[in-house]
């Protein structure tokens, strides 16, 4: 994809000629006091009001946005402080969904899997307020992660549509409406999260159809990414290269890059947002280790097409570990940039195509 699309996020004071954009996938550990505040807010016996809760989430959003900036990230988020679970949060804001109670995922881990009981319709905005608040609190550009329509459909009970494809396409139109509102509010970097694609790879054509609807009418300078995690990528590559997005954000550190070769043939023609720290190991990766991981990315794409990111959302980690991973990740990216500037790194990947 065009390097210009990425260069718009380059900070004015960036220290190196090369620019490996650093960002995160989205979720981040909530401060303990926010969880405590939520308990009070949900306790009918307590007089912790709607206004108190609003103030608490605003404070948390400011705090975590600032924490991302402190870590040195080029593009930040607010750690999804206002969101609950990645399907529930959106289903509560879409007409046509109802909730019946928790269902098991594994062991004693449950989620409120919603049911689609009538045609889905756009009601209130989902993320515009979150974006505006975060953008006002941040000095850096802000990315907006949003759960994709295929995952919203696949992780719900479908009572109303003939098939999941029809539901996913209707949801894609709603996501398109929301993204247009986000763009109007100033957002320039949108990440669609489709973890369900990893579990049902046969449906990649449906995800492609959804993305066509999602990007319909979006200005070219809006950067779009697709995050897919925890699956067998050989079952969706190279088909995903046809998807109308600028960037793929992939989880690869978890498997120690055992799936890296999948992306070498045919050549990776989009930008690669490479997972360089494992989101499920509660230990801070060393700068040297992350540098080695970044070099793995350069076996697949040239520096112009490489973005640096963790494998997945960091919300399950202790907060100080999550911060340490981000800070080391940024330091490693800057070190690799400097070495690229100095010509000390041989790039394994083919040079970017002329177009």
């Amino acid at each position, binding site marked *: 994809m065009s390097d210009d699309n990425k260069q718009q996020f380059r900070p004015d004071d960036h220290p190196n000629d090369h620019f490996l954009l650093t960002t995160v996938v989205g979720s981040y550990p909530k401060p303990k006091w926010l969880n405590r505040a939520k308990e009070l807010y949900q306790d009918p016996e307590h007089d912790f009001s709607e206004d108190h809760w609003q103030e608490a989430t605003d404070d948390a959003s400011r705090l975590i946005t600032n924490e991302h900036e402190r870590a040195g990230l080029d593009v930040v988020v607010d750690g999804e402080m206002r969101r609950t679970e990645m399907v529930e949060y959106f289903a509560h804001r879409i007409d046509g969904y109802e909730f019946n109670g928790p*269902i*098991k*995922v594994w*062991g*004693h881990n449950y989620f409120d899997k919603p049911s689609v009981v009538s045609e889905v319709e756009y009601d209130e905005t989902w993320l515009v307020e979150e974006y505006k608040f975060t953008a006002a609190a941040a000095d850096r550009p802000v990315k907006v992660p949003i759960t994709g329509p295929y995952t919203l459909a696949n*992780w719900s009970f479908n*009572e109303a549509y003939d098939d999941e494809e029809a539901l996913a396409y209707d949801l894609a139109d709603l996501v398109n409406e929301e993204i247009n509102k986000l763009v109007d509010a100033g957002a320039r970097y949108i990440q669609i999260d489709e973890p369900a694609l990893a579990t049902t790879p046969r449906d990649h054509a449906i995800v492609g159809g959804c993305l066509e609807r999602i990007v319909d009418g979006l200005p070219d300078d809006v950067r779009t990414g697709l995050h897919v995690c925890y699956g067998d990528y050989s079952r969706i590559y190279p088909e995903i290269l046809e998807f109308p997005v600028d960037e793929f954000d992939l989880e690869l550190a978890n498997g120690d890059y055992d799936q890296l070769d999948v992306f070498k043939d045919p050549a990776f023609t989009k930008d690669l947002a490479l997972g360089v720290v494992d989101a499920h190991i509660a230990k801070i990766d060393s700068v040297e280790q992350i540098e080695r991981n970044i070099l793995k990315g350069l076996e697949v794409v040239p520096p112009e097409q490489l973005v640096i990111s963790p494998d997945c959302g960091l919300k399950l980690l202790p907060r100080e570990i999550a911060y340490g991973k981000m800070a080391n990740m940024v330091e490693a990216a800057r070190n690799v940039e400097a070495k690229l500037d100095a010509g000390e790194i041989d790039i394994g990947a083919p040079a970017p195509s002329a177009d």
Partner: protein
Amino acid sequence: MTEYVSTTPGLFPLPDWAKDDLSDLKGHQKHDLISGDEGEEITAAYEQAREEVIEVQHEAGLDRISEGQLRWDDMLAHPLAVHDAVDTRGIVRYYDNNNFYRDPVVTDDLDFSGDVAGELETASELADGDLQAVLPGPYSLFDLSTDEYYGTDEEFLAAVGEFLAGEVEAFPEHETLFLLEPSLVTDAPEDGLDELASETIDTVAASTDAEVVVHTYWGALTEKVHAHLLDAGVDAIGYDFVTNQEDNLYNINEYGSTDSVALGLVDGQNTLVEDPEAVRDRTEWVFDQLPVTEFETVYLSTNTETFYLPVNKFEEKLAALAEAAALAEVTPA
């Protein structure tokens, strides 16, 4: 005259209070899952939950009462996951669902366990003579686990069959035994193993005097696997008519079926609750497509286990099944 029997393949959702209490008592991580030697408090919580789901089935009017398999954290892999000769390792995906279980790795001889018999003992009295036992079929249990002891697929599968047969022998009196065999559909046994799969089912079925139903789901059996299954000494084969009508009808028309059948007509994985009249009509429709004159017993069931559902919808589905069976009895197909 055909008898219509309303039942389920078991593996119910835990009541919501038990989800909370057992989360607190056990924890959320891999090593917190059921071990088979849980302490008093956890045992008491499961006993209370078991009583509750048995009462729910009585109230719904089901003809067979399941213990509910509420302790089966690892779903159909449970009987091995709690076995002393098994190590549980990584968390792996449960078929094509957004559900996970611990990979049971067999490292020693699969001798008698008695875990499931213990559960059934506590349910036996409450079930009022309508008790239905539930187990994974030997092929599915073989398919869900990893062997580091027996060496060959043939020996391992046969050992799983012998193990399950030994477990069944220890069961208290039961009316029906449901052997759940989704893997026969999703990961059909290859040549050689298909015949052995039926033989091991036969071994398990021979260890009880109860009616034995081999229930298949998430599609239809291949012709060959279906043909082999007919050679096993079971009373009924279960067919998933929610996922695939055409191939199931084809199998029955082409090769015949057992004297009794189970029909998975109510969707165990969707909250949309079926209308009892519609279930009865679907039963009649299925029989209209078949040349068979009459089955001895027709089990009406959900196609899959029901732990995928929230509790309120689960209970409504049980009631729909019970009413559909009553309606079918009045106006037989």
